């Protein structure tokens, strides 16, 4: 027997700090605030009514996560595509889907955005280029495909895929990052790391400490973002969206946040949460956080916030009235839209 000593190449990760500057005007701060408050006001009202069984099916709300869709969608127009998940209500609001159409959809009404065929997990709008899917990980390659179309057609639109830390363990996440990277697609992958997939902690399901690390395996730049700070989300998203629009390819934003809502209303007992964890994150509520920042930066005042909240309540109330005055669809509607021309 003889011993040989061999050497091999291996790699290691290095953490790096990226510095990005943000310019925040009063208008921008109030626009963030309007989006977040509108989403929250709508979700609070939905929750109240869902608890008295006004709606069918499940209901996934995203209290505490609103800064992510609000900060990202600030940069998008109707020409940009968004794929979202089962937890899509705030995203639909921020992408500009009509409130009454969203509510009507949740109530299965004929005037719902999907004519009552989608429901709360599957809000969609072709004119707003928005699509949510109830299959975890399902929307990620679809956003990459929209980006492929933009590139092929020479449109300067971008595509954004929103998805959770749970979805990051699906093959579609990994396949999409690889595909987007090899074709340099104008797509931004926005991972909403609320630390749980239903009851499963990210740390128990994911072999890396942070999903941002995974992007390195696909030669893709990634930023870890404080997902409860809308200014941070916006700043990171601006960097990502502008890169994509310039044709510099995809990126991943790993937004750290926390779901203050249960995974789904009524059913989830939330026993999986360690004691005190939720309370800690309640103090980091993104809406309050923005109020503090805006006051500190002298961009807005308490009166502005009160006014926007009152406006949101009014908008939601009126939207409910319009939505609930819409009839239920006729049974024949069930047999339409399977194929075109039907």
């Amino acid at each position, binding site marked *: 027997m003889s011993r040989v000593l061999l050497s091999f190449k291996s790699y290691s990760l290095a953490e790096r700090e990226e510095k990005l500057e943000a310019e925040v005007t009063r208008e921008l701060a109030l626009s963030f605030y309007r989006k977040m408050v509108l989403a929250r006001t709508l979700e609070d009202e939905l929750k109240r009514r869902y608890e008295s069984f006004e709606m069918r099916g499940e209901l996934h709300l995203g209290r505490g996560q609103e800064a992510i869709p609000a900060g990202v969608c600030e940069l998008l127009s109707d020409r940009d595509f968004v794929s979202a998940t089962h937890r899509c209500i705030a995203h639909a609001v921020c992408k500009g889907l009509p409130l009454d159409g969203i509510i009507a959809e949740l109530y299965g009404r004929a005037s719902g955005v*999907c004519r009552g065929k989608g429901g709360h997990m599957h809000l969609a709008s072709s004119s707003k280029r928005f699509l949510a899917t109830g299959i975890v990980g399902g929307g990620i390659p679809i956003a990459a495909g929209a980006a*492929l179309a933009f*590139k092929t057609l020479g449109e300067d639109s971008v595509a954004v895929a929103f998805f959770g830390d749970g979805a990051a363990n699906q093959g579609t996440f990994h396949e999409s990052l690889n*595909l987007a990277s090899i074709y340099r697609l104008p797509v931004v992958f926005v991972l909403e790391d609320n630390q749980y997939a239903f009851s499963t902690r990210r740390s128990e399901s994911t072999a890396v400490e942070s999903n941002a690390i995974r992007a390195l395996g696909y030669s893709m730049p990634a930023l870890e973002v404080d997902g409860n700070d809308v200014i941070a989300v916006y700043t990171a998203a601006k960097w990502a969206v502008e890169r994509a629009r310039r044709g510099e390819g995809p990126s991943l934003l790993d937004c750290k946040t926390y779901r203050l809502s249960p995974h789904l209303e009524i059913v989830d007992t939330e026993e999986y949460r360690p004691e005190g964890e939720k309370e800690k994150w309640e103090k980091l509520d993104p809406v309050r956080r923005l109020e503090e920042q805006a006051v500190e930066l002298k961009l807005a005042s308490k009166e502005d916030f009160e006014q926007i909240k009152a406006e949101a309540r009014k908008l939601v109330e009126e939207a409910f009235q319009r939505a609930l005055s819409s009839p239920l669809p006729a049974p024949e509607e069930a047999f*339409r839209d399977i194929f075109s021309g039907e």
Partner: protein
Amino acid sequence: MPREIAMWEAINEAIRQEMERDSRIIVLGEDIGKMGGAFWCTQGLLEQFGSSRVIDTPISEAGFMGMAIGAALVGLRPIVELQFVDFFGVAWDQIYNHLAKLRYMSGGQFKLPVVIRAPIGGGYGDAAQHSQVLYSIFAHIPGLKVVAPSNPYDAKGLLISSIRCDDPVVFLEHKLLYGLFYLPPGSFGEVPEEPYELPLGEARIAAEGEDITIVGAAYTAYLAEKAADRLREQGVSAEVIDLRTLVPLDKHALRKSVEKTGRLLVVDEDYLPYGLTGEVIATIAEDAEAFKALKAPPARVGNPGVPVPFSEPLEKAVLPSEDKIVKEALKLVEA
């Protein structure tokens, strides 16, 4: 001008002519560009249309199937090639939960003009993971049209219609019909040079007859035509219906034929349980006129529910053949 070409050439020509007509059409899949496709069907497209429209993908079926869907949602008309139909499984969620349903679930807002092309079938010793046809899995899902041509003329016209269709179409091409020298027998025939459409949902009466109706699709339609020639020599007049499209199914053609012949033999290369043959027989059984016309219980020939084996005698034991069709047809006529 019609000239005699192989089915793979008809498919290639259909894609090329459609891509010339409509710049929104892209083709993506594994080895379809530089290599021209595992079964030759995308030869020359990369050279003609460039790599932004003819996209060689990694082996990442869920990923590129999803990309085809996303691209369709915002205005492209993708043709996706699955290298073998058997590989649909890794992309199935994108196909049956997304591609098939997004139009419906969005209340008709989104169009999904995506064609999935996939080679199907056994009979050449490729064993159970590369020899399936799997029609009924696709046909079972609402929102997918399913096409399976048996000859070059139909392949070209049906593929052009599929590409122009605003709904998802699963276009299944039998490997033994392509006309590749290493996969006999191949289907060759006269095909016009200019583009033309054939309607989705119309069966073809491949042979007219009085005594028995034999139904098939793709390679089983090809076999049924040959079987009908032999039956004719034995004094049995068989009508052969080549379904061409499984969704929509041409129920009218089936019922009309059975009302005339009173006997039905359905031939399928797919697994018999819960499949195409049962669907065709139910179509007759549900119709009072056609049902009354039956002189004998319907019969079927197909894979009885066995993974396609590798070794030749085993594979032959499982798959349908001209001999099996003739034998079953004679039994039915003599019953």
